[in-house]
């Protein structure tokens, strides 16, 4: 038996690492990877709660989160490619204009 709080703790640590990466990373792809890390931390909490309350809907929600994450990754990476094509850089400090 593993206490539920341990799972939540692990999810929280992963989420915090993702937030930190989002803040300190300067490469746009690394920032995007940090967002994926945050999503994974939340997914772990979902599964832990689903097991705690014997509610399988929690697992279905994780499934939907994964689908949305896949769609988000596709569009986000396409945007990154478009940004790189116009700016020739991946550093977010140098991407400071919405205009082309």
């Amino acid at each position, binding site marked *: *038996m*593993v*206490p*539920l*709080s*341990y*799972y*939540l*703790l692990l999810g*929280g*640590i*992963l989420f*915090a*690492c993702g*937030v*930190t*990466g989002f*803040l*300190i*990373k*300067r*490469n746009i*792809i*690394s920032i*995007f*990877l*940090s967002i*994926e*890390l945050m999503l*994974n931390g939340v997914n*772990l909490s979902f*599964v832990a709660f*689903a*097991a*705690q309350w014997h509610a*399988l*809907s929690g*697992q*279905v929600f*994780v*499934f*939907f989160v*994964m*689908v*949305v*994450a*896949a*769609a*988000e*990754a*596709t*569009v986000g*990476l*396409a945007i*990154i*490619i478009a940004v790189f*094509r116009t700016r020739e850089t*991946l*550093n977010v*400090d140098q991407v400071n204009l919405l205009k082309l």
Partner: protein
Amino acid sequence: MHLILFLGFGAVCVAGAVNLLVQRHPINSALSLVVVMGALAGEYLLLGAEFLAAVQVIVYAGAIMVLFVFVIMLLNAGVEERTKGSRIALLFGVPGMLIGSVLVAWVLLTHSNTGEVAVGALPGPPKVIAQLLFHEFLLPFEVTSVLVLIAIMGAVVLASKPGPIPPGKKEE
């Protein structure tokens, strides 16, 4: 035994997440994220979510991360350089994360009257998940198919090269 497995997978998870933060090259970050996702699949197995563990490995660690690695290699992303803004972010980001983690840990460990999770207590075979997915959650499921279709079209439009129309092809 279960606690040992949980701690082992959890240690791998946290090590991968910290490595993601420390690495300067995006490809190293991406590969450490693959490690995190693999270890999370182990955690899902411990919780009895077999279907999700398989989906985690196939979709997350497989498909999505391959997409990331493709883009990193396509754009020839190099080591990120530090600027003044990034140092300020480092100055505030790391203490912020530490404070946040300690706060979350404190709350969870002092108010942990949430009981315990029996390992494998929740049977999550694909059959039961499919029953839920195609009965109760049928509408969201179909909506996600539209979402994925829109995402595909958006990616093609965004990533396609805007350029002059090649000769021999007329604009319609």
